[in-house]
């Protein structure tokens, strides 16, 4: 989710919150007969006559249709904007590329290979990797699933080694790493001797 959409969410939540507070205070005060203190000409009862007249007017149906289309499209756009959009970068251009030839590498394949190397670490059940473009950053994402009995120190060292290798292979100064370590709920029974 982009920060801009999150900002819009916060702004509209704030706006709706303030409207509800004002409306709630007004309804509560009116119900108790106290609204006339701040608004002397407050009506004694609700009259929706003008609203009903407007609803019956000839222009209303067209306006309502237009409003429905506009608000519906806005709502759908707002809803869809929450779907995370992260592209896999495609081939990465490597340093050393010039007019005589372009050096490129499939970043996700390299990250997947790094993950497979990590999966060889004792106590690691599985691992997968890919390179994504996330909020303007090129990120090598590796996801590791380990047994509950994994030696975290050993795993941390293996991660350092493997990402250093990945860094060497890809050689891009703008590439960042993110390794998510997941711990499995239950130990998978393993052969005692390997």
């Amino acid at each position, binding site marked *: 989710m982009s920060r801009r959409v999150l900002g819009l969410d916060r702004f509209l939540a704030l706006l709706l919150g303030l409207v509800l507070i004002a409306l709630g205070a007004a309804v509560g005060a009116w119900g108790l007969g106290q609204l006339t203190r701040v608004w002397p000409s407050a009506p004694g009862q609700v009259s929706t006559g003008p609203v009903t007249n407007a609803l019956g007017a000839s222009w209303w149906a067209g306006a309502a249709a237009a409003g429905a289309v506009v608000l519906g499209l806005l709502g759908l756009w707002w*809803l869809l904007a929450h779907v995370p959009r992260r592209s896999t970068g495609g081939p990465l251009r490597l340093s050393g590329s010039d007019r005589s030839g372009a050096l490129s590498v499939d970043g996700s394949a390299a990250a997947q290979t790094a993950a497979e190397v990590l999966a060889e670490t004792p106590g690691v059940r599985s691992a997968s990797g890919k390179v994504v473009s996330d909020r303007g950053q090129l990120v090598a994402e590796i996801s590791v699933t380990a047994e509950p009995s994994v030696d975290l120190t050993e795993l941390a060292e293996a991660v350092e080694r493997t990402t250093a290798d990945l860094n060497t292979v890809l050689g891009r100064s703008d590439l960042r790493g*993110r390794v998510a370590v997941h711990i499995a709920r239950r130990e998978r029974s393993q052969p005692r001797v390997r």
Partner: protein
Amino acid sequence: MTTTTPGRHAAAQGRAPLPSAGLPTGAGTIGWLGPLLAVLLVGVAVVLGQDAWVRLNGGSTTWLGTAASGLDGLAPAPWMAAVGVVLVLVGLWLVLKAFGRRTRDALALRGSSGAHLTTGDVARLVTGAANQVDGVLDAKTSASRRSATLSITTTGTPGTESQAQQAAERALSALASPPRVRVRATTTGDPS
């Protein structure tokens, strides 16, 4: 044609680990509140659309019309105070959530690689470490970024509690800032 020259660039780059992309953060309540508000907006569009559809087809009984005539002639009543209070509370909650902080539940591993675990993973790790201690029959853990509470059921062998604590602390020692481990032990057959 793509060419590669392995070795030369690799040697020049050295073997520094990848710089970290930073710990992931969750959006918190606003993460589901935003989509919910979007759905509400679509709901408003549906109400308007129903009104337009019925009126363009010659009808006159619409949701909006029914609501308007239902509200007509409403006089002040004490129960409206309760409605007002509920509306104000919902409004206050929305304002609070609009300013709410992002949730952080990731703990970094030591080193610069950007490896991290969530608090749930930390809890499972502590449980796994405690389960390997002799005398521990059952273990459950709840963890936050600052502390982990390990609840164990033991056979009653003396020292099991401290051994479980040490095992848990050892399991978390690779974290950049390990949460404090607290152990609550009960013995089998204990009434508590």
